Each structure stands twice: as C-alpha cells, then as structure tokens.
C-alpha cells in the first residue's frame, strides 16, 4: 500500500517535472537558468523513500528522462545511479538523521550529479558553462526542497 502511494506520488511529480522542464521560469529572460527538476526529484526520492527506487528502476527512469529532455542516451541513467552510489556510501559511513543533515546531503548529491552531468556533457562535445551549472544546482536544490515537502506531505502514513 505504502509502495503504491509512493509510486503514485513519484509519477505525478515526474509528470510535473516534464511540464516544468518545457516551460521557462516566469519572468526570467535567460531560458537556460532553470532547475533540473529530474535530478531534484530523484534526489528527493532517494533521500526520502530509498526502498522504492532500486538501481534498475533508476536507469530506466534515466532513459525516459533522456528521451524527454536529454542530449545523450544513458546520461541521466548514469547520473541517477551515481546519486544512488553516493547516497549508499554516505549512509554506510555517516549517520544522517536530522533535517539539516538530510538537506546538506541533498545539496551534496545535487552538486555531485551536476558534476557528472557536466563531465559527461563536455567529454561528449556538449558544452555547458560551469557558471551555469553552479546556478542550476542552486535552483535544483530549491526544487528539491519543494519536492521534499510534497513527498513528505503525500506519502506519510
């Protein structure tokens, strides 16, 4: 039952992410300055409900994201499994319990995923400005906080 609820929330937020990825932030002239909603969503779900998203599902979701907004097939799959790996390692070596710790970990995961995004893009001839990546990661962190509220509100018992 709990898993079904999580899945429903995930699908709804995923659809919202697709919608928002296709429209710029209102009032902002520079269209590239927008958060990466998919990284925010996966980070929020990984930190909240780890059981629902296993490594295979993450790759499949990554491929779907690639079709919708990606530039390179397999790039988002790689980013998502890197989020999974980093989160797993941190959970092994650190005790992450308080809200501040979780948010800090969320920020770290977002920064890590943007580094993977930037590295894979640049190594495949897709230039992304590093400054832009930095701004996008901050915006993505804000999106993560919003998604986090939604997940907590709609999946709690």
């Amino acid at each position, binding site marked *: 039952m709990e898993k079904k609820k999580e899945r429903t929330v995930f699908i709804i937020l995923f659809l919202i992410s697709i919608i928002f990825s*296709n429209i710029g932030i209102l009032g902002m002239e520079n269209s590239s300055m927008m958060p990466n909603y998919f990284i925010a969503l996966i980070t929020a779900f990984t930190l909240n409900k780890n059981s629902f998203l296993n490594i295979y599902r993450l790759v499949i979701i990554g491929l779907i994201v*690639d079709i919708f907004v990606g530039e390179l097939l*397999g790039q988002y*799959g790689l980013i998502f499994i890197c989020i999974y790996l980093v989160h*797993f390692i941190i959970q092994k070596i650190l005790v992450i319990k308080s809200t501040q710790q979780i948010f800090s970990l969320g920020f770290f995961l977002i920064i890590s995923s943007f580094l993977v995004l930037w590295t894979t893009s640049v190594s495949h001839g897709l230039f992304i400005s590093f400054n832009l990546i930095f701004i996008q990661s901050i915006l993505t962190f804000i999106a993560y906080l919003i998604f986090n509220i939604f997940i907590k509100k709609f999946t709690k018992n």
Partner: protein
Amino acid sequence: MERNLSKDSLKLFNRDSFPLVSFVILLILCLVMMGVDYRQQILKKIKSKFSIVLSPITYLINLPADIFIDSKDVFVTKTLLKEKIEILQQRNYILSIVAQENELLKSENKILRNTLGIKKYFNLVSVNAEIILPNVRNGYSIITINKGLKNNIQIGSAVINNAGLVGQIINTSKNYSEIMPITSEDYAVPAIMDNNKENVILYGNGNGGLEIPLFPESSSISVNDNFVTSGAGGLYPKGINIGRVVEIKSTTSPRFNSIMITPVSQPTTFTQVTVINIKE
C-alpha cells in the same frame, strides 16, 4: 519501562549490501549507450520518432501561455489597430512600388544572364510555417514549427523571417519540425559584412547573441556594422540579414578581438517563419 522504538530508528548505519555487480553492469551499459549515441546520434532518431507523441504534449503544456499572449493581443485598443492599419497601408504602397522595381530588375537580370551565359546556380524552395512554441528543453532553446516532412522540410534547411536569419532545422517529424535558433551554442553560420569586406563565421553564444571569438585586430570593424549570410557552403542563400555588431572586446591575444553581435530576430519576437531549401 518498555521502549517502543521502531526497527528503522535503531538502524543508524546502512547495513544492506551494495548491488555491486548490477551497478558495474549498469554503469558500463550507460557509458556504452552514451558512446554509441555520440557516434550514431540514436537519441535524435528516437526523439524524431517520439515527436509525434511529444509535440502535442509540448503544445498542450504551452497552450495556457499562448492563450494568455493571444488574449492580450485581442485587447489591443481599436485606435492602435487603426494606426497600425494606416502604417501598414502606407508600407504596402511603398512595397508595391519596390516590388514593381524588383520585377523589372528581375527580368532585366534574366536577360543579362542569358546574354552573358551565366547559369542560375540555385533556386529557392520555401515553405511558410507558424511557430507553435519557442520552448526550452532542459535549458536548450528550441523553436517548434507546424510543418514537417509532409511539407518537404529537410534537416539542415535554413529558417528565415522578414527580419532575417532565424536558425536551422535540426529535427523533423511528419507534422512538426524543430529549429535550432542562431543564438544556440552549437550554431555556426558563414557570414560577410554587408559592405563585402570581411568573410567570417559567426557562432551562437547560447545567451541571446552571436560572436566572432577571434577577429583580426588589423581588419576594420565598428559597432553597428551589419552581417549577412555569405552563401559559402551552399546551405544559406547569400544576403540574409543576421545581425549587427554591438561590442568589440579585446582578447588575451593582442592580434585578435572578440566581436559580439546581436541578431536581428529573436525567437520571442515573431510568429511566422519561412523554411528555405536550396535546390541545386
């Protein structure tokens, strides 16, 4: 007193085993997919197939914003419309005279070409299309138009409007096509200054402008100089307006300057475009 602690709250560290084999396999799979896609452009083909599904979704997503913009236009005052009609009538009158002159020049040109035995190098096949949405796909600007393979639109065709060069077709499906705007980072166009002095290649800077990263310091150029397509490479017809110089910046090399150019047409300032194919 019995302490009612859940299993989860007692679990401080993650004691699950990491699916290492799966991780390595999936990691390699992702890297292989990226490598293959980089060489074979598979994602573009998949997107092209999916665009039948995606384009209507994108259209629906942007529909509220489009309706808002359209409704704003509806409320334009009558006086303003009257003024516009008057200006357009005057312009139409002037243009009809210019058109007559052009017809005369065209026929004169044809006679002269025939006399001199010059071959006609190319003829232009154009398709008018409407912009469905200038949208953003994960940070990249893309313009979607309502004409596709059905209307003989080909990948690589140049797209212009009445102001000048708009971009290039990068993706086509049966009913829709996607345009990469001239200001995109991946965009490059051979250009010439309208006084026929300098042949250059302009690059989109991804930030609403174009630039020439290394322009010889010895060559004369000034702010407000205009660039048009040079026709080199045969992709674009010669003489289409691209933009004008707004800034000349010095670079680390004393021999070169960096030239910033603002395009004559921005994706948000027009609704109609013309796709042109050059037929040899």
